[in-house]
């Protein structure tokens, strides 16, 4: 970052906030179109019932829950990078954490759609929240689905607050470069930030506090999501391995998604000074670590199933690898365990093309991992008489595409209205402007 000035940083990073190009609108339009497809499919499903999805009892969960878990997993990396790495004072986080946090929030927002989409009576989905009502109805706090409601909503709340706190100095920076109504909007959002020492001191305390507060949530939210499965006695789900395995998988997919999102951004906005190979290599290393954890977990799952001598458990794991769902299983193994091994070659984790492609492969693999867990276990339950095979329909796929549109729409809009790289923190990393610089410049 040599040679960068404060002014240059602000100019570079805030550039996307002004005068969007046609390509920007094209991207936004594409996202909204995808969302519209999903919206149509959801309305269609509301009209005709959940039967328009491919559910084949006893496979009562399918693509919706798969995609729900996928998005919750994606939502992991942001807070991990911003909070945990902040506490560890890891420098490489600075360039990527803002966009990752935004990704987290939008991913959780995408995930939050699915519980309502997947329930049979979506118009009654609010019954999942404990609210005072004259019918004296209450929720079952024994149900992991209730825990889920709280885990995801707390995670969303805390991440959002943390995200917003991080944004305040940058919003102020934007405020100072805008005018008119927009300036008023940013002024309100900046909460009167002037960059005084006193403000900075309070700010840093609050930021540290929320970082500490968010850190356990990183571990808790996906552990709780994993309990949706682990607490059930369905073979293939009922495993104490699930919480760490899910958290590992979530970080794996989250870091991959950060690469997928930031790499094109960094190229398109010419942000090589702020986000570059150094960052992506770190992210790739995170993926390598968590991918290894995941591979271990897969192996362990099979080993425990065999060692337990439980015919139902072992039946599931044999079936996953050799049964009707073997293509899902082997897609998962190929995408999550095998292909990411290429990053062990340093050149490949420093190459933008391989970084981008493998990150997408990981995301595909992680979606299939959840699909593998959900569909194959339910399709091969205890009683062989109930065995079946589930195939999603266009409605489910359209709603999944819609969720990507929903996520993309928010992310693209975010790029336009907020700085995607933390301006203030980047400035901390560069040499402050000195009087002597002026002399050098004068010469």
């Amino acid at each position: 970052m040599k040679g960068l000035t404060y002014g240059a940083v602000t100019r570079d990073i805030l550039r996307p906030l002004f005068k969007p190009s046609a390509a920007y609108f094209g991207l936004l339009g594409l996202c909204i179109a995808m969302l519209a497809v999903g919206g149509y499919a959801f309305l269609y499903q509301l009209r005709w019932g959940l039967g328009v999805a491919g559910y084949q009892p006893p496979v009562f969960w399918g693509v919706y829950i798969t995609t729900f878990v996928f998005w919750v997993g994606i939502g992991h990396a942001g807070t991990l990078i911003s909070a945990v790495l902040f506490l560890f004072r890891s420098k490489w986080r600075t360039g990527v954490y803002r966009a990752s946090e935004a990704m987290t929030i939008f991913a959780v927002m995408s995930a939050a759609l699915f519980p309502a989409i997947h329930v049979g009576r979506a118009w009654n989905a609010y019954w999942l929240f404990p609210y005072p009502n004259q019918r004296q109805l209450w929720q079952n706090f024994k149900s992991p689905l209730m825990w889920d409601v709280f885990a995801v909503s707390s995670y969303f709340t805390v991440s959002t607050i943390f995200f917003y706190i991080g944004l305040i100095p940058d919003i102020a920076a934007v405020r100072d470069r805008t005018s008119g109504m927009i300036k008023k909007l940013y002024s309100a959002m900046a909460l009167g930030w002037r960059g005084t020492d006193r403000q900075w001191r309070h700010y840093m305390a609050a930021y540290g506090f929320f970082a500490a507060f968010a850190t356990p949530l990183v571990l808790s939210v996906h552990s709780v999501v994993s309990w949706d499965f682990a607490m059930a006695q369905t073979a293939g789900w009922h495993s104490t391995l699930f919480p760490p395995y899910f958290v590992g998988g979530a970080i794996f997919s989250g870091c991959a998604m950060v690469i997928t999102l930031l790499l094109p951004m960094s190229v398109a906005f010419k942000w090589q000074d702020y986000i570059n190979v150094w960052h992506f290599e770190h992210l790739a290393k995170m993926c390598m670590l968590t991918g290894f954890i995941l591979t271990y977990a897969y192996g362990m799952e099979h080993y425990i199933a065999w060692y337990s001598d439980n015919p139902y458990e072992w039946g599931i794991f044999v079936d996953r690898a050799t049964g009707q769902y073997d293509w899902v299983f082997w897609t998962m193994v190929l995408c999550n365990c095998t292909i990411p091994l290429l990053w062990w070659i340093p050149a490949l984790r420093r190459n933008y093309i391989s970084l981008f492609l493998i990150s997408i492969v990981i995301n595909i693999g992680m979606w299939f991992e959840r699909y593998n867990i959900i569909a194959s276990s339910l399709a091969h339950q205890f009683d062989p008489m109930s065995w079946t095979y589930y195939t999603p329909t266009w409605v489910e796929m359209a709603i999944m595409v819609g969720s990507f549109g929903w996520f993309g729409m928010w992310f693209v809009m975010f790029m336009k209205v907020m700085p995607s790289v933390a301006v203030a923190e980047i400035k901390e990393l560069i040499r402050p402007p000195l009087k002597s610089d002026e002399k050098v410049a004068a010469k």
Partner: protein
Amino acid sequence: MTMLNRRDFMKVAGVTAAAGAVACDPRVPMEKVLPYVVQPEQIVPGLPTWFATQCNECSAHCGVEAKNREGRIIKLEGNRQHPANNGRLCAMGLAGLQSTYSPDRFAGPMIGGQPKAWPDAQAAAVEAIKAAKAGGKEVAWLGHARTGATGALIEAFIGALGGKPLFWEPASGVASLRAATKVVFGKDTVPSYDLSGAHTVLSFGAEFLSTWGAVELRQGWAAGRDPKVGGFVSRTVCVEPRIGNTSCVADLHLQAVPGSEAGVALAIAKLLAEKKGYAGLAATALSAVNADELITAAGLKKERVAEVIGWLAANPSVVLPGGAHTAGNPTALAVATLLLNDVAGNIGTSVYFGQTSNVAGQASAQQVVDLFTRLNEGKVGVIFLDGSDPAYNLPSDVKAFDALAKATVISFANEANDSLIPTAIVLPGGTTLESWGDAEARSGWHTLQQATMRPLKDSQQLGDTVLTLAKGLGLSTPPVAAAPAPTEAAPAADATAAPAGDAGAAPVDPAAAPVAPPAPVAPKVLGLEAENFLAYLKSWWAGVVWPKAGMPGSFEAFWVECLQRGGWFQTLPREGASVVLQAAASAAAPALSGAGNLSLVLFPHPFIYDGRHANKPWAQEIPEPLSSFTWGTWAEIHPKTAESLGLTKDDKISVKTDVGAIDVGWFASPGIREDVVAVVMGNGQQRGGRYTKWGANPASLISSKFDESGELQLVQAKASVSKAAGPNLHPYLGHINTDGRGVNFAVSINDLGKGSGPASIVPAHHVPIDPRVTAAGLTDMYPEPEHPTYRFAMAVDLNRCTGCGACETACFSENNTPVVGPDQVRKGRHMGWIRLSRYWEGTGEQPDIRFQPVICQQCSHAPCEGVCPVLATYHNLDGLNAMVYNRCVGTRYCGNNCPYTARRFNYHNFRWPESFHLMLNPDVSTREVGVMEKCSFCVQRLRAAKDQYRDNKEVVPEKALLKLTACAQACPTDAITFGNANDKQSALWAMFQDERTYTMLGELNTKPGVRYMARINHVESALHHGGHGGGHGGGHATDDHGGDHGEKAAPSGAHH
């Protein structure tokens, strides 16, 4: 700011609320509910009225109790006083309800498809008959079997027109058995069978647990299966080319070459005669038999046959003949079985005469085909069709549909069928529940059919239409002076007295009438001049049945008693018969015609039967127990044959004979001979109702060939099978066997009595608590929840279960279960609360097929309850796993977590088309889209029982609970017992303590309220050999579990 005062606030609030109420669109449209202006005497809103009537779904005519709620029959149950079914009812009988409410019912009479008023339509019919008579043409009647007064009326009517009605039961196999009985015993009837005392039930393809005979046969079989009833467990041996809905219970399955069964029966008879030193007349017939040759020709092992002979020689037995769908020579087969019965000493005991089926009026298929020949020749002017569907049932070479167009068809059909030609005069006869009638299906069993509800449509009961036509034609038969009314002194009349179904034509045999004291009233049997059918029916009963009953008092009192009881049933003494052998017994197997390497066998559908029930969605949707297919036609092929043909499970196949070809689904049946293909009958109608649009008609594969009795040969052709375009049918069951899992067990008969306490002779590694835990002095971490008064529970004796589907049908009827149709079934979204699991554990000679009705197990530690986020499902104090539909959001987590997969989800708003909605049980809510549902143990019936006893502050007694649920009530073999597990004196609790009682997936420790009693197999002791299905799919490590069986059974100390 001006303050809003209280009055203004009230005004605004009132207007707002009213506007809101008006503007809101309630999900259910509002309708006015009006109370009765004049309360009908019999109707108490909310309480059902039960009427005894009869079942007309097959020719057995069991007794029925029809449940009337607010003027509509909403459920059928067996008549507890009827000897043919003793309170139980089969799947076909239960589904009979749907014919009344069918959405395809004709609104009223029609001519050429145009609605007509009754007088006009009847006048047209009269004109047609007059024209036929004037032209010297025949007036024919083709219908299902009718007996009693109804049969008599039809015989009188057609008799007056110079003909004889043809009562035809296409799939009954009666003609051949009747001809054989004539040959062997010189009697023109068919014998009756009693299975209850038989240690060996040897069946040559008889569907005695399915479509053949009354429920009574199944009850007899079940009695022989229960060691606690007769002290023995009968063996069922089946000689037939495939495993059907009866032979599925077989302990031994001898896959004889099709056509060789008669030879096998003769060979067994010969060897048995030698073994027993039998010297009866049958011996002469057997002298020429070369037993070894016949057994070899049938492809059977001699030592197996010798074993069977040993069993037959040692203990009482019964031998049953199959009809035309087993062998191409059904008469020869029937002759052979009757001889075998005689040799085995069964005649007069398990095979008896005296109280025989009333088959005198029944016609053979050949007679029917002859009628169609006359139709084609233009000799028939008018043909009445009463239930029969010849265009569907007869082979395609008869071209029945075209032939019918050459006469005037007068049909009593309520719905469309294949034989209803466009020009037909349709005079809808109303359904069983709407009309009067009677039957004497077995001599002495007079069943009365009363009109239990008003006709839904503009129909007129058949009897009234016939009488009206007779009047229009000026027909009359002289009234007959009947037997004098009985007095105290008059004993019950002799069995042979009244030739049933002959009242219109001849006086009752005077010899049978009691001679002594003169009658107080002289009832007379009316003829065709009877004012209406009810008058005719009553006069017939007064003249024919009342004298037999010998009941003093007025006929009215007798009549009312008969109405209440459902008829009048006389137990006649069993009679034997001696062999006369009017013709030689033949073992010659008929040659199958045509090209093709497989022998074609056709068999009736267990619910759709010969096709007559095809438009009943229950019959279509409830999976056929063996293949678990629904909605369509399929063929059974041996997996090896299928493999050699290169068929995959997704392929549709084409079955081709020289006569025709049909595209059907296929089922890889491990129980069929490799050189046989069997096709199910019943589907593939061309012009039927809306539920008959699937499948293909196998009658197009055969031509009209008959055996000597006139029975249509259903085994007559060779067929070839090839892959066809399109998908296979979708099996409801996902697998063929248990795969070694702890869902179902069988025990060896040799192990009975070796255990002590529940589950002591089923494999031990599937018990709830590992014995090592209890041995260590540890207890269950999860105690039973509190059940202060009741713990409703159920025991299912799988040794009695035959997989007949009655429980499923009863459940559909009782609980307003929606029918989802073939497309949804293909997606596995069957809504039936009972899954009839079929575990086909054995192959070859020992099929070891175990049926298991799986319902919600009502667990005390239900996995579904904990995971529901909104408490829509919870455990109540009665032990029920209750389900609150209105609270359900539809997360379906409960469904995922139920190891029994007993939960059903409403994927759509499943609807009941007009007028099926009138059939719904008002005590059970229908479920909307997005809601989970499951078996409730018929909570509405439980409520009713509890309410009844609560008035006296009593606990519902065991007797009222025993058959409380719809499934238990229906079960023809009494396999299901319901009760209160808190009552330690109850039969249920005793069953729970039985050594063969186990809980499904016991190792999960869900503490189910439903427990199963393992099927008893006639195999060597299984206790030390892994127990079930030959080994454990899970691959148990020997050092871990090797000692389990021993440990588990150790307390008994019986076998170490």
